[in-house]
C-alpha cells in the first residue's frame, strides 16, 4: 500500500499519495478548483506544467503554483474559490 500524506484544502482534510503535487490533489478532489477568474468563473489546473498559472493558490501563506509544489503533511492550501 502506498504511503499517504494529509493536507488541508480550504480547511478540509484530504489524504493523497506521498509525492503527489498540490495540483493533482486539487484536480482530483470532487469539484476541485483553484481560483475565480477575473470574470468570476471557477478555474482548475489546466496545463499541469507551470505554464498557465491557473493553479496558483496560497500554500502555507505563500502564493505558489500548485502543479510545481509537492504535498506535505499538514500543508494548508487556500484556494481563491471562496474569496469574497
Amino acid at each position, binding site marked *: 500500500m502506498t504511503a499517504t500524506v494529509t493536507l488541508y484544502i480550504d480547511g478540509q482534510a484530504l489524504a493523497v499519495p506521498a509525492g503527489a503535487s498540490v*495540483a493533482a490533489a486539487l*484536480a482530483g478532489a470532487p469539484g476541485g478548483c483553484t481560483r475565480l477568474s*477575473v470574470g468570476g468563473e471557477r478555474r*482548475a489546473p489546466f*496545463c*499541469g*506544467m*507551470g505554464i*498557465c498559472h491557473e493553479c496558483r493558490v496560497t500554500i502555507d501563506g505563500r502564493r505558489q503554483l500548485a502543479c510545481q509544489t509537492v504535498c506535505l503533511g499538514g500543508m494548508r492550501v487556500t484556494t481563491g474559490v471562496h474569496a469574497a
Partner: protein
Amino acid sequence: MNRATHPHCTAGVRRCDVLIIGAGPAGMAAALAAAPSGAAIVLVDDNPAPGGQIWRDGPGAHLPPLARAQRERLAGAANVRVLCGTRVVSLADAPAAGTAPALLLEDGASGWTQHCASLILCTGARELLLPFPGWTLPGVTGAGGLQALIKAGMPVRGQRIVIAGSGPLLLAAAHTARQAGAQVLRVAEQARWRQLAGFGLQLPRWPAKAAQALALLQPGLRAASHVLEAQGAGQVQSVRLSRGAGHEVLACDRLACGFGLVPHTHLGQMLGCALGARQGLAVDALQATTVPGVWAAGECTGFGGSEKALAEGAMAGHAAVGDAAAAQALAGERARWQGFADALHRHFALSPQLRHLPRPDTLVCRCEDVSHAALQARSGWIDAKLHTRCGMGPCQGRVCGAAAQFLYGWTPAPGRHLLAPARIATLAGYGNDESTA
C-alpha cells in the same frame, strides 16, 4: 528593510562554470556530458524533480530505465548541483568579458544572481493550447497537462476521458490515462488519415519509434476529428467532436486537448538569441546560439522528442566545456533525430479550420478573461495588450500568445523584464550583491 535579519533576503552572488536551465532529457544529457571535465555545473529546474515533462516523476509515473539511469548518474556526479524548485526570474547585470550572461534565480527560500562561464538553455516546450467554447471549464486540461497531472498523482480510475488535438502526445497521454485505470473513450486527431499514413510509412527509418507507435495505437483513435465544444455546468460533462461532415457528442469526466508543442524561447529571446527556421532558438553545428557563451539544446531549438534532446544536450554539454571533438561526434545522431522531428512537423500540420473553433464570447486570454470578439477588433499583439490586457496576466502570454499567433497571425513580443512572478525580496536583493558576499 533590514536585509541582514529578513529570512528571505539572502540574495547574493553565486558563480559556476556551466549553468544549465532545464533538467529534462536535454539538460540532464548536457550536465552528464560536461561533468567529466570537472567543471562546476549547476542544473536548474522549476519542477520538484529532474526529468522535464517526458520523464516527470511522481506517484503516478512509470519512469523508463534510461530516465532512472540518467538520474542516478547525475546524483553520482559530485561536480553537478541539481537545483529543483528553482526558476529564472530575470536577466541580471551585464556580464564581464568572456563570461555568459548572468541570471537572477529564485527558489522557495531566496533569490540570487548566478554567474557562469557558459550557459546552456534546455528550456523545453509547452503545449499549443487553442481556445474553443468551454475550454475554461474545470476538468478540461491540456493533453500533456492530463498526463502530467496523472503522473503527479491525480486519480482517474474509472473516469471517462476524451483526448483531442494533434500529435503523438495524444496517444502517449491516452496510454498514461489507461495505465492509471481511466476509460479513454476517444482520441480525436485533427490530421487526416492520409497525413497519418504518410507519417507511418516514414517510421521504419526510426525502428524504436515505429515500435512505440504500434504499442500506442488504439481502437478509439479517429483521424480528421477535432473538438468543437466542451459542455457542462461548473465542470465538463460532455464534449462535442467533429467527425467527417457531422459530429459526435460524448459524455465524459475529463477532456484533454493539445495541438502540438511550442518551443520555449522566452529566456533565449530575452538574452538576444535569434530564432531559427523551426520556431525554436537558432543554433549552429555545435548547438551554440547567436549569443556568445550561450548554447541551446532540446525542444527549445524546435520540438522533436527526447532522442533529439538527448543528442543535442550531450553536444551542448561537450561544446560548453571546450570539447568540440566529442560534440562533433554526435552530429550523425542529431541529424537522424532531426529527420524524425521534420517528419512530425510535416505530417501533423494544423488544419486552418481550427481557427474557427472560438465563438465571439470564447475567452482567448484566460488570465485576463479577454474574448475572441475583443481580440478580433485589434490590429496586433501590442495593440491587443494595450487595449484589452490580453497576455498581461500571470502567464505573460505563454498560453494566449501562441493561440493568438495561430488565430490572428500575430507575432507575440517576448517579455522584456520578468520571466515569472517573483518575490519582492528577490528583486530587492538584486543590485545589492556586495552586502552578502
